[in-house]
Protein backbone atom coordinates (compact mmCIF):
# COMPACT_ATOMS: atom_id res chain seq x y z
CA UNK A 1 0.00 0.00 0.00
CA UNK A 2 1.23 3.45 -0.79
CA UNK A 3 1.47 5.94 1.94
CA UNK A 4 3.99 8.50 0.93
CA UNK A 5 2.45 11.91 0.53
CA UNK A 6 5.22 12.80 -1.87
CA UNK A 7 4.85 16.41 -0.97
CA UNK A 8 7.77 18.40 0.34
CA UNK A 9 6.13 19.16 3.65
CA UNK A 10 4.62 15.75 4.19
CA UNK A 11 5.73 13.82 7.19
CA UNK A 12 5.46 10.06 7.45
CA UNK A 13 2.70 9.06 9.78
CA UNK A 14 3.11 5.44 10.85
CA UNK A 15 0.12 5.61 13.13
CA UNK A 16 -2.24 6.66 10.37
CA UNK A 17 -0.73 4.10 8.04
CA UNK A 18 -1.35 1.42 10.60
CA UNK A 19 -4.91 2.58 11.04
CA UNK A 20 -5.68 2.55 7.32
CA UNK A 21 -4.38 -0.97 7.03
CA UNK A 22 -7.21 -2.06 9.25
CA UNK A 23 -9.72 -1.58 6.47
CA UNK A 24 -9.19 -4.65 4.32
CA UNK A 25 -10.42 -4.86 0.79
CA UNK A 26 -14.15 -5.64 0.87
CA UNK A 27 -14.91 -9.15 -0.29
CA UNK A 28 -17.74 -9.94 -2.66
CA UNK A 29 -20.27 -12.66 -2.04
CA UNK A 30 -18.98 -15.82 -3.62
CA UNK A 31 -22.21 -16.50 -5.48
CA UNK A 32 -22.10 -13.04 -7.03
CA UNK A 33 -18.49 -13.48 -8.00
CA UNK A 34 -19.14 -16.83 -9.64
CA UNK A 35 -22.27 -15.68 -11.43
CA UNK A 36 -20.55 -12.65 -12.88
CA UNK A 37 -17.55 -14.76 -13.78
CA UNK A 38 -19.76 -17.13 -15.75
CA UNK A 39 -21.44 -14.25 -17.54
CA UNK A 40 -18.16 -12.53 -18.29
CA UNK A 41 -16.48 -15.63 -19.67
CA UNK A 42 -19.52 -16.65 -21.68
CA UNK A 43 -19.45 -13.21 -23.28
CA UNK A 44 -23.19 -12.72 -23.28
CA UNK A 45 -22.84 -8.98 -23.47
CA UNK A 46 -22.41 -8.61 -27.17
CA UNK A 47 -26.10 -8.61 -28.02
CA UNK A 48 -27.08 -5.98 -25.53
CA UNK A 49 -23.86 -4.09 -25.76
CA UNK A 50 -24.69 -2.41 -29.00
CA UNK A 51 -27.65 -0.72 -27.42
CA UNK A 52 -25.60 0.73 -24.59
CA UNK A 53 -22.16 1.30 -25.87
CA UNK A 54 -22.94 4.35 -27.94
CA UNK A 55 -24.30 6.20 -24.98
CA UNK A 56 -21.58 5.29 -22.54
CA UNK A 57 -18.18 6.58 -21.70
CA UNK A 58 -15.58 4.15 -22.90
CA UNK A 59 -12.91 5.52 -20.61
CA UNK A 60 -9.50 5.95 -22.15
CA UNK A 61 -10.21 3.89 -25.22
CA UNK A 62 -12.17 6.36 -27.34
CA UNK A 63 -14.19 5.73 -30.39
CA UNK A 64 -11.88 6.17 -33.32
CA UNK A 65 -12.85 8.39 -36.16
CA UNK A 66 -13.06 6.62 -39.49
CA UNK A 67 -9.86 6.43 -41.44
CA UNK A 68 -9.51 8.59 -44.44
CA UNK A 69 -11.92 7.31 -47.08
CA UNK A 70 -13.73 4.92 -44.79
CA UNK A 71 -17.48 5.12 -44.78
CA UNK A 72 -17.79 5.64 -48.48
CA UNK A 73 -20.39 3.53 -50.24
CA UNK A 74 -19.12 0.11 -51.16
CA UNK A 75 -19.12 0.11 -54.94
CA UNK A 76 -20.72 -3.26 -55.26
CA UNK A 77 -22.88 -1.86 -58.01
CA UNK A 78 -19.75 -1.66 -60.13
CA UNK A 79 -19.82 -5.41 -60.57
CA UNK A 80 -23.47 -6.39 -60.80
CA UNK A 81 -24.79 -9.37 -62.59
CA UNK A 82 -26.18 -7.82 -65.70
CA UNK A 83 -29.86 -8.23 -66.17
CA UNK A 84 -30.71 -9.53 -69.64
CA UNK A 85 -33.04 -6.57 -70.06
CA UNK A 86 -30.29 -4.00 -69.42
CA UNK A 87 -28.22 -2.63 -72.21
CA UNK A 88 -24.45 -2.09 -71.95
CA UNK A 89 -24.71 1.70 -72.17
CA UNK A 90 -26.97 1.74 -69.14
CA UNK A 91 -24.33 -0.07 -67.12
CA UNK A 92 -21.60 2.29 -68.26
CA UNK A 93 -23.67 5.31 -67.34
CA UNK A 94 -24.41 3.80 -63.96
CA UNK A 95 -20.75 3.15 -63.34
CA UNK A 96 -19.91 6.71 -64.24
CA UNK A 97 -22.63 8.12 -62.02
CA UNK A 98 -21.59 6.04 -59.06
CA UNK A 99 -17.94 6.91 -59.55
CA UNK A 100 -18.81 10.59 -59.75
CA UNK A 101 -20.91 10.33 -56.61
CA UNK A 102 -18.13 8.54 -54.77
CA UNK A 103 -15.61 11.12 -55.87
CA UNK A 104 -17.94 13.90 -54.79
CA UNK A 105 -18.42 12.32 -51.38
CA UNK A 106 -14.70 11.79 -51.00
CA UNK A 107 -13.93 15.40 -51.78
CA UNK A 108 -16.86 16.66 -49.77
CA UNK A 109 -15.48 14.94 -46.73
CA UNK A 110 -11.91 15.89 -47.41
CA UNK A 111 -11.68 19.06 -45.29
CA UNK A 112 -12.01 16.95 -42.18
CA UNK A 113 -8.77 15.10 -41.97
CA UNK A 114 -8.27 15.16 -38.24
CA UNK A 115 -8.86 11.93 -36.42
CA UNK A 116 -8.70 11.03 -32.77
CA UNK A 117 -6.13 8.28 -32.40
CA UNK A 118 -7.07 5.06 -30.67
CA UNK A 119 -4.21 5.68 -28.28
CA UNK A 120 -6.05 8.65 -26.77
CA UNK A 121 -6.88 8.44 -23.10
CA UNK A 122 -8.56 11.76 -22.59
CA UNK A 123 -11.51 12.01 -20.29
CA UNK A 124 -12.79 15.38 -21.40
CA UNK A 125 -11.70 17.72 -24.16
CA UNK A 126 -13.05 21.00 -25.49
CA UNK A 127 -12.96 22.39 -28.98
CA UNK A 128 -13.86 26.06 -29.09
CA UNK A 129 -15.53 25.65 -25.74
CA UNK A 130 -17.65 22.68 -26.70
CA UNK A 131 -17.09 19.60 -24.58
CA UNK A 132 -16.42 16.15 -25.99
CA UNK A 133 -16.22 12.84 -24.17
CA UNK A 134 -14.05 9.92 -25.30
CA UNK A 135 -17.08 8.40 -27.00
CA UNK A 136 -17.36 11.48 -29.20
CA UNK A 137 -13.99 11.20 -30.89
CA UNK A 138 -15.48 11.44 -34.35
CA UNK A 139 -17.45 14.55 -33.51
CA UNK A 140 -14.41 16.09 -31.86
CA UNK A 141 -12.32 15.50 -34.97
CA UNK A 142 -15.04 16.98 -37.15
CA UNK A 143 -15.12 20.10 -35.00
CA UNK A 144 -11.44 20.85 -35.58
CA UNK A 145 -11.04 23.74 -37.97
CA UNK A 146 -8.33 26.29 -38.63
CA UNK A 147 -8.41 28.60 -35.64
CA UNK A 148 -9.98 26.06 -33.31
CA UNK A 149 -8.86 26.11 -29.69
CA UNK A 150 -8.39 22.65 -28.20
CA UNK A 151 -8.30 22.16 -24.44
CA UNK A 152 -7.75 18.86 -22.64
CA UNK A 153 -9.17 18.49 -19.17
CA UNK A 154 -8.00 15.00 -18.36
CA UNK A 155 -5.82 12.28 -19.78
CA UNK A 156 -4.16 12.82 -23.11
CA UNK A 157 -5.78 13.59 -26.42
CA UNK A 158 -3.93 12.10 -29.38
CA UNK A 159 -4.78 13.68 -32.73
CA UNK A 160 -3.69 12.73 -36.21
CA UNK A 161 -3.62 15.15 -39.12
CA UNK A 162 -3.96 12.59 -41.91
CA UNK A 163 -0.50 11.00 -42.18
CA UNK A 164 1.46 14.18 -41.63
CA UNK A 165 1.64 14.68 -37.92
CA UNK A 166 0.51 13.10 -34.67
CA UNK A 167 -0.03 15.26 -31.61
CA UNK A 168 -0.49 14.19 -28.03
CA UNK A 169 -1.95 16.92 -25.88
CA UNK A 170 -1.75 16.26 -22.16
CA UNK A 171 -4.24 17.26 -19.50
CA UNK A 172 -4.18 20.95 -18.74
CA UNK A 173 -3.04 21.91 -22.19
CA UNK A 174 -4.42 24.46 -24.61
CA UNK A 175 -3.54 24.48 -28.28
CA UNK A 176 -4.81 26.64 -31.13
CA UNK A 177 -4.80 25.20 -34.63
CA UNK A 178 -3.76 28.42 -36.26
CA UNK A 179 -3.47 26.96 -39.75
CA UNK A 180 -3.47 23.53 -41.28
CA UNK A 181 -2.90 22.60 -44.93
CA UNK A 182 -5.94 22.93 -47.11
CA UNK A 183 -6.81 20.00 -49.37
CA UNK A 184 -4.25 19.63 -52.11
CA UNK A 185 -2.65 22.91 -51.13
CA UNK A 186 0.66 22.54 -49.40
CA UNK A 187 1.00 24.92 -46.51
CA UNK A 188 2.48 25.14 -43.08
CA UNK A 189 1.01 23.42 -40.11
CA UNK A 190 0.95 26.23 -37.62
CA UNK A 191 0.01 25.64 -34.00
CA UNK A 192 -0.05 27.92 -30.97
CA UNK A 193 0.51 26.17 -27.67
CA UNK A 194 -0.66 28.43 -24.89
CA UNK A 195 -0.08 26.05 -21.99
CA UNK A 196 0.52 22.47 -21.03
CA UNK A 197 2.39 19.63 -22.65
CA UNK A 198 2.50 18.65 -26.28
CA UNK A 199 4.25 15.69 -27.87
CA UNK A 200 4.72 15.64 -31.63
CA UNK A 201 5.68 12.89 -34.04
CA UNK A 202 5.77 13.61 -37.73
CA UNK A 203 4.38 10.94 -40.01
CA UNK A 204 5.12 9.49 -43.43
CA UNK A 205 2.99 12.16 -45.12
CA UNK A 206 5.01 14.99 -43.63
CA UNK A 207 7.39 15.08 -46.56
CA UNK A 208 7.87 18.64 -47.83
CA UNK A 209 5.56 20.02 -45.20
CA UNK A 210 6.72 22.17 -42.32
CA UNK A 211 5.49 22.64 -38.83
CA UNK A 212 5.59 25.77 -36.69
CA UNK A 213 4.62 25.73 -33.06
CA UNK A 214 4.39 29.00 -31.20
CA UNK A 215 4.62 29.09 -27.44
CA UNK A 216 4.38 32.12 -25.15
CA UNK A 217 8.15 32.10 -24.97
CA UNK A 218 9.36 31.11 -28.39
CA UNK A 219 8.79 29.15 -31.51
CA UNK A 220 9.71 25.69 -32.70
CA UNK A 221 10.17 24.82 -36.36
CA UNK A 222 10.39 21.29 -37.54
CA UNK A 223 11.24 19.42 -40.68
CA UNK A 224 10.33 15.89 -39.71
CA UNK A 225 11.22 14.58 -36.30
CA UNK A 226 9.93 13.61 -32.91
CA UNK A 227 9.94 16.06 -30.07
CA UNK A 228 8.03 17.26 -27.03
CA UNK A 229 7.20 20.70 -25.69
CA UNK A 230 6.11 21.67 -22.22
CA UNK A 231 4.94 25.19 -21.47
CA UNK A 232 5.30 26.09 -17.81
CA UNK A 233 3.32 29.19 -17.06
CA UNK A 234 5.45 32.01 -15.76
CA UNK A 235 8.65 30.04 -16.25
CA UNK A 236 9.22 29.22 -19.86
CA UNK A 237 9.10 26.54 -22.50
CA UNK A 238 10.99 23.27 -22.53
CA UNK A 239 11.65 21.52 -25.84
CA UNK A 240 13.05 18.00 -25.92
CA UNK A 241 14.02 16.42 -29.22
CA UNK A 242 14.08 12.67 -29.65
CA UNK A 243 15.09 12.50 -33.29
CA UNK A 244 15.91 14.80 -36.19
CA UNK A 245 16.56 18.52 -35.94
CA UNK A 246 14.35 21.16 -34.36
CA UNK A 247 14.87 24.91 -34.66
CA UNK A 248 13.98 26.75 -31.50
CA UNK A 249 13.63 30.53 -31.54
CA UNK A 250 13.66 32.67 -28.42
CA UNK A 251 10.65 34.60 -29.60
CA UNK A 252 7.62 33.70 -31.70
CA UNK A 253 8.24 34.75 -35.27
CA UNK A 254 4.99 36.60 -35.62
CA UNK A 255 4.14 40.05 -36.81
CA UNK A 256 6.65 40.05 -39.57
CA UNK A 257 9.62 39.03 -37.48
CA UNK A 258 11.93 37.10 -39.75
CA UNK A 259 13.92 34.12 -38.50
CA UNK A 260 17.18 35.99 -38.83
CA UNK A 261 15.96 38.59 -36.32
CA UNK A 262 15.42 36.10 -33.52
CA UNK A 263 18.07 33.99 -31.84
CA UNK A 264 17.86 30.45 -33.11
CA UNK A 265 19.09 27.26 -31.58
CA UNK A 266 19.33 23.99 -33.44
CA UNK A 267 18.24 21.10 -31.29
CA UNK A 268 19.33 17.60 -32.27
CA UNK A 269 18.08 14.23 -31.12
CA UNK A 270 18.63 13.62 -27.41
CA UNK A 271 18.93 17.32 -26.60
CA UNK A 272 16.81 19.67 -24.54
CA UNK A 273 16.55 23.43 -24.38
CA UNK A 274 14.66 25.59 -21.93
CA UNK A 275 13.59 29.08 -23.05
CA UNK A 276 12.76 31.31 -20.10
CA UNK A 277 9.80 33.64 -20.09
CA UNK A 278 11.88 36.48 -18.68
CA UNK A 279 14.42 36.13 -21.50
CA UNK A 280 17.19 34.90 -19.26
CA UNK A 281 19.83 33.00 -21.21
CA UNK A 282 18.35 29.71 -22.27
CA UNK A 283 19.58 26.51 -20.71
CA UNK A 284 20.31 23.33 -22.55
CA UNK A 285 21.16 19.76 -21.70
CA UNK A 286 20.16 16.19 -22.37
CA UNK A 287 16.55 15.49 -23.23
CA UNK A 288 14.31 14.68 -20.29
CA UNK A 289 13.18 11.09 -20.31
CA UNK A 290 9.73 11.88 -18.96
CA UNK A 291 9.14 14.31 -21.80
CA UNK A 292 10.23 11.83 -24.44
CA UNK A 293 8.21 8.98 -23.02
CA UNK A 294 4.91 9.84 -24.79
CA UNK A 295 6.68 9.95 -28.12
CA UNK A 296 7.41 6.25 -28.13
CA UNK A 297 3.76 5.29 -27.95
CA UNK A 298 2.70 8.15 -30.20
CA UNK A 299 5.00 7.11 -33.04
CA UNK A 300 3.27 3.75 -33.12
CA UNK A 301 0.23 5.38 -34.70
CA UNK A 302 2.16 5.59 -37.95
CA UNK A 303 3.03 1.92 -37.99
CA UNK A 304 0.11 1.11 -40.24
CA UNK A 305 0.42 4.19 -42.40
CA UNK A 306 3.79 3.52 -43.93
Amino acid sequence: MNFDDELPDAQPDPALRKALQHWPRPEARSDFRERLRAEFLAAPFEARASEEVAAQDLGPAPQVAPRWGEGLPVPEILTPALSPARRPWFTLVSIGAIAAAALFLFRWQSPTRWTVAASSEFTLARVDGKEFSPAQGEQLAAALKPGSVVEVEGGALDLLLDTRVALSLAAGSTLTLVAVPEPEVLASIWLDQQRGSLAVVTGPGFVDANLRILTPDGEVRVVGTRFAIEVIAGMGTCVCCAEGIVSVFDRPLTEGLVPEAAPEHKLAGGEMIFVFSDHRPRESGPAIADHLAPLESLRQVWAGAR
Partner: protein
Amino acid sequence: MSSLPHRHGFRPVPSPAGSTSPEELTADELTALAERRPEALERFYDVYFTRVFGYVSRLVKDEHAAEDLTQDIFMHLHRALSSYDPRRALRPWVFTIATNKVRDYWASATFHDRSLNFADDDEDGEGRPSPRRERTSEERGPRAILAGAELETAVREAIDRLPGQLRQTLVLRYYEELAFEEIARIVGRNEVAVRKRYSRALSELRELLGEVHDLGTPQGGAG
Protein backbone atom coordinates in the same frame (compact mmCIF):
# COMPACT_ATOMS: atom_id res chain seq x y z
CA MET B 1 19.04 22.21 -14.98
CA SER B 2 18.00 20.22 -12.01
CA SER B 3 16.21 23.25 -10.65
CA LEU B 4 13.81 23.38 -13.54
CA PRO B 5 10.30 22.93 -12.30
CA HIS B 6 9.23 20.24 -14.71
CA ARG B 7 11.72 17.55 -13.80
CA HIS B 8 9.03 15.55 -12.11
CA GLY B 9 6.16 16.59 -14.29
CA PHE B 10 4.69 15.70 -17.65
CA ARG B 11 3.84 12.09 -18.23
CA PRO B 12 6.12 9.52 -16.67
CA VAL B 13 6.79 6.37 -18.60
CA PRO B 14 3.68 4.24 -18.36
CA SER B 15 3.99 0.89 -16.73
CA PRO B 16 5.13 -1.40 -19.50
CA ALA B 17 2.69 -4.12 -20.17
CA GLY B 18 3.70 -7.36 -18.62
CA SER B 19 6.51 -6.03 -16.51
CA THR B 20 4.59 -5.44 -13.33
CA SER B 21 3.83 -7.67 -10.41
CA PRO B 22 2.92 -11.34 -10.79
CA GLU B 23 -0.66 -10.27 -10.26
CA GLU B 24 -0.54 -8.30 -13.49
CA LEU B 25 -1.11 -9.81 -16.89
CA THR B 26 1.89 -10.46 -19.08
CA ALA B 27 2.36 -8.88 -22.48
CA ASP B 28 1.22 -12.06 -24.18
CA GLU B 29 -1.84 -12.21 -21.98
CA LEU B 30 -2.67 -8.61 -22.76
CA THR B 31 -2.50 -9.31 -26.47
CA ALA B 32 -4.76 -12.31 -26.00
CA LEU B 33 -7.05 -10.21 -23.87
CA ALA B 34 -7.45 -7.61 -26.60
CA GLU B 35 -8.51 -10.46 -28.85
CA ARG B 36 -10.88 -11.63 -26.13
CA ARG B 37 -9.52 -15.13 -26.00
CA PRO B 38 -11.25 -17.21 -23.33
CA GLU B 39 -8.15 -18.03 -21.31
CA ALA B 40 -7.13 -14.37 -21.24
CA LEU B 41 -10.60 -13.28 -20.21
CA GLU B 42 -10.51 -15.79 -17.39
CA ARG B 43 -7.14 -14.58 -16.20
CA PHE B 44 -8.26 -10.97 -16.44
CA TYR B 45 -11.35 -11.68 -14.41
CA ASP B 46 -9.41 -13.54 -11.75
CA VAL B 47 -6.91 -10.71 -11.39
CA TYR B 48 -9.31 -7.80 -11.56
CA PHE B 49 -12.58 -8.88 -10.03
CA THR B 50 -11.37 -8.51 -6.47
CA ARG B 51 -9.72 -5.19 -7.23
CA VAL B 52 -12.68 -3.71 -9.01
CA PHE B 53 -15.22 -4.90 -6.48
CA GLY B 54 -13.03 -3.73 -3.62
CA TYR B 55 -12.52 -0.34 -5.22
CA VAL B 56 -16.19 0.17 -5.90
CA SER B 57 -17.23 -1.06 -2.46
CA ARG B 58 -14.92 1.37 -0.78
CA LEU B 59 -16.54 4.20 -2.67
CA VAL B 60 -20.24 3.42 -2.68
CA LYS B 61 -20.69 1.59 0.63
CA ASP B 62 -24.01 0.01 -0.38
CA GLU B 63 -23.29 -3.64 -1.16
CA HIS B 64 -26.07 -4.05 -3.71
CA ALA B 65 -24.97 -0.91 -5.50
CA ALA B 66 -21.40 -2.18 -5.47
CA GLU B 67 -22.50 -5.44 -7.06
CA ASP B 68 -24.57 -3.66 -9.69
CA LEU B 69 -21.72 -1.35 -10.51
CA THR B 70 -19.17 -4.15 -10.65
CA GLN B 71 -21.36 -6.08 -13.05
CA ASP B 72 -21.82 -2.97 -15.15
CA ILE B 73 -18.10 -2.31 -15.17
CA PHE B 74 -17.23 -5.82 -16.32
CA MET B 75 -19.84 -5.67 -19.04
CA HIS B 76 -18.34 -2.41 -20.16
CA LEU B 77 -14.81 -3.78 -19.98
CA HIS B 78 -15.77 -6.74 -22.09
CA ARG B 79 -17.11 -4.50 -24.82
CA ALA B 80 -14.28 -2.02 -24.59
CA LEU B 81 -11.65 -4.73 -24.91
CA SER B 82 -12.16 -4.61 -28.64
CA SER B 83 -10.58 -1.16 -28.61
CA TYR B 84 -8.02 -1.85 -25.92
CA ASP B 85 -4.41 -1.37 -27.03
CA PRO B 86 -2.32 -4.08 -25.34
CA ARG B 87 0.70 -1.80 -25.41
CA ARG B 88 -1.02 0.39 -22.89
CA ALA B 89 -1.01 -0.31 -19.18
CA LEU B 90 -4.11 -2.26 -18.24
CA ARG B 91 -4.67 -1.20 -14.67
CA PRO B 92 -5.24 2.53 -15.28
CA TRP B 93 -7.53 1.66 -18.15
CA VAL B 94 -9.65 -0.60 -15.96
CA PHE B 95 -9.80 1.91 -13.14
CA THR B 96 -10.71 4.72 -15.49
CA ILE B 97 -13.78 2.83 -16.60
CA ALA B 98 -14.58 1.88 -13.01
CA THR B 99 -14.16 5.48 -11.87
CA ASN B 100 -16.42 6.76 -14.60
CA LYS B 101 -19.09 4.28 -13.55
CA VAL B 102 -18.83 5.37 -9.95
CA ARG B 103 -19.11 8.98 -11.01
CA ASP B 104 -22.20 8.18 -13.00
CA TYR B 105 -23.59 6.44 -9.96
CA TRP B 106 -22.86 9.38 -7.73
CA ALA B 107 -24.66 11.61 -10.16
CA SER B 108 -27.63 9.27 -10.43
CA ALA B 109 -30.97 9.48 -8.74
CA THR B 110 -30.35 6.06 -7.23
CA PHE B 111 -27.37 7.38 -5.38
CA HIS B 112 -29.24 10.36 -4.03
CA ASP B 113 -32.08 8.13 -2.93
CA ARG B 114 -29.76 5.81 -1.12
CA SER B 115 -27.43 8.37 0.35
CA LEU B 116 -29.26 11.07 2.18
CA ASN B 117 -26.02 12.14 3.76
CA PHE B 118 -24.57 13.12 0.44
CA ALA B 119 -25.10 16.41 -1.27
CA ASP B 120 -23.52 18.55 -3.91
CA ASP B 121 -20.76 19.72 -1.68
CA ASP B 122 -18.17 20.54 -4.25
CA GLU B 123 -15.00 20.30 -2.26
CA ASP B 124 -12.77 21.99 -4.76
CA GLY B 125 -15.11 23.58 -7.18
CA GLU B 126 -14.85 20.85 -9.76
CA GLY B 127 -18.50 20.13 -10.10
CA ARG B 128 -18.64 16.60 -8.77
CA PRO B 129 -21.00 15.49 -6.08
CA SER B 130 -19.20 14.59 -2.91
CA PRO B 131 -20.23 13.51 0.54
CA ARG B 132 -21.14 16.37 2.77
CA ARG B 133 -18.84 16.41 5.71
CA GLU B 134 -21.12 17.61 8.44
CA ARG B 135 -19.97 17.89 11.96
CA THR B 136 -23.06 18.33 14.04
CA SER B 137 -23.26 18.04 17.74
CA GLU B 138 -24.75 14.61 17.29
CA GLU B 139 -21.76 13.32 15.41
CA ARG B 140 -19.68 10.93 17.31
CA GLY B 141 -16.12 12.04 17.75
CA PRO B 142 -13.32 9.85 16.58
CA ARG B 143 -12.32 8.94 20.08
CA ALA B 144 -15.79 7.71 20.81
CA ILE B 145 -15.79 5.70 17.63
CA LEU B 146 -12.47 4.18 18.41
CA ALA B 147 -13.45 3.43 21.92
CA GLY B 148 -16.75 1.84 21.07
CA ALA B 149 -16.30 0.13 17.75
CA GLU B 150 -13.93 -1.96 15.77
CA LEU B 151 -11.00 -0.22 14.29
CA GLU B 152 -12.07 -1.21 10.83
CA THR B 153 -15.39 0.51 11.34
CA ALA B 154 -13.69 3.61 12.61
CA VAL B 155 -11.39 3.82 9.63
CA ARG B 156 -14.17 3.07 7.16
CA GLU B 157 -16.42 5.68 8.66
CA ALA B 158 -13.64 8.22 8.64
CA ILE B 159 -12.92 7.56 5.00
CA ASP B 160 -16.62 7.63 4.22
CA ARG B 161 -16.76 11.12 5.61
CA LEU B 162 -14.20 12.36 3.17
CA PRO B 163 -15.50 14.29 0.17
CA GLY B 164 -15.94 11.96 -2.78
CA GLN B 165 -12.95 13.18 -4.73
CA LEU B 166 -10.61 12.91 -1.77
CA ARG B 167 -11.93 9.45 -0.99
CA GLN B 168 -11.51 8.38 -4.59
CA THR B 169 -7.94 9.64 -4.68
CA LEU B 170 -7.09 8.02 -1.37
CA VAL B 171 -8.47 4.65 -2.42
CA LEU B 172 -6.75 4.73 -5.80
CA ARG B 173 -3.44 5.76 -4.30
CA TYR B 174 -3.25 4.01 -0.97
CA TYR B 175 -5.31 0.89 -1.45
CA GLU B 176 -5.01 0.32 -5.20
CA GLU B 177 -1.43 1.59 -5.34
CA LEU B 178 -1.75 3.57 -8.55
CA ALA B 179 0.80 6.23 -9.40
CA PHE B 180 -0.23 9.86 -9.10
CA GLU B 181 0.21 10.26 -12.82
CA GLU B 182 -2.13 7.35 -13.46
CA ILE B 183 -4.69 8.72 -11.02
CA ALA B 184 -4.50 12.10 -12.69
CA ARG B 185 -5.44 10.54 -16.00
CA ILE B 186 -8.18 8.48 -14.41
CA VAL B 187 -9.88 11.35 -12.63
CA GLY B 188 -9.20 13.88 -15.34
CA ARG B 189 -7.07 16.29 -13.37
CA ASN B 190 -3.42 17.18 -13.41
CA GLU B 191 -0.89 15.42 -11.25
CA VAL B 192 -0.32 18.35 -8.92
CA ALA B 193 -4.02 18.55 -8.13
CA VAL B 194 -4.11 14.83 -7.40
CA ARG B 195 -1.14 15.08 -5.07
CA LYS B 196 -2.87 17.90 -3.25
CA ARG B 197 -6.03 15.87 -2.95
CA TYR B 198 -4.15 12.95 -1.53
CA SER B 199 -2.35 15.11 0.97
CA ARG B 200 -5.61 16.73 1.93
CA ALA B 201 -7.30 13.36 2.32
CA LEU B 202 -4.59 12.21 4.71
CA SER B 203 -4.79 15.46 6.59
CA GLU B 204 -8.55 15.15 6.99
CA LEU B 205 -8.22 11.56 8.08
CA ARG B 206 -5.75 12.54 10.73
CA GLU B 207 -8.23 15.06 11.98
CA LEU B 208 -11.14 12.65 11.82
CA LEU B 209 -9.29 9.94 13.63
CA GLY B 210 -7.85 12.37 16.11
CA GLU B 211 -4.62 11.72 17.90
CA VAL B 212 -5.59 8.13 18.57
CA HIS B 213 -5.21 6.60 15.17
CA ASP B 214 -2.46 4.42 16.49
CA LEU B 215 -4.96 1.71 17.09
CA GLY B 216 -2.72 -0.44 19.11
CA THR B 217 -3.52 1.87 21.99
CA PRO B 218 -6.97 3.37 21.42
CA GLN B 219 -7.84 6.13 23.77
CA GLY B 220 -11.19 6.51 25.33
CA GLY B 221 -13.26 9.55 25.97
CA ALA B 222 -15.52 11.65 23.89
CA GLY B 223 -14.07 13.13 20.77
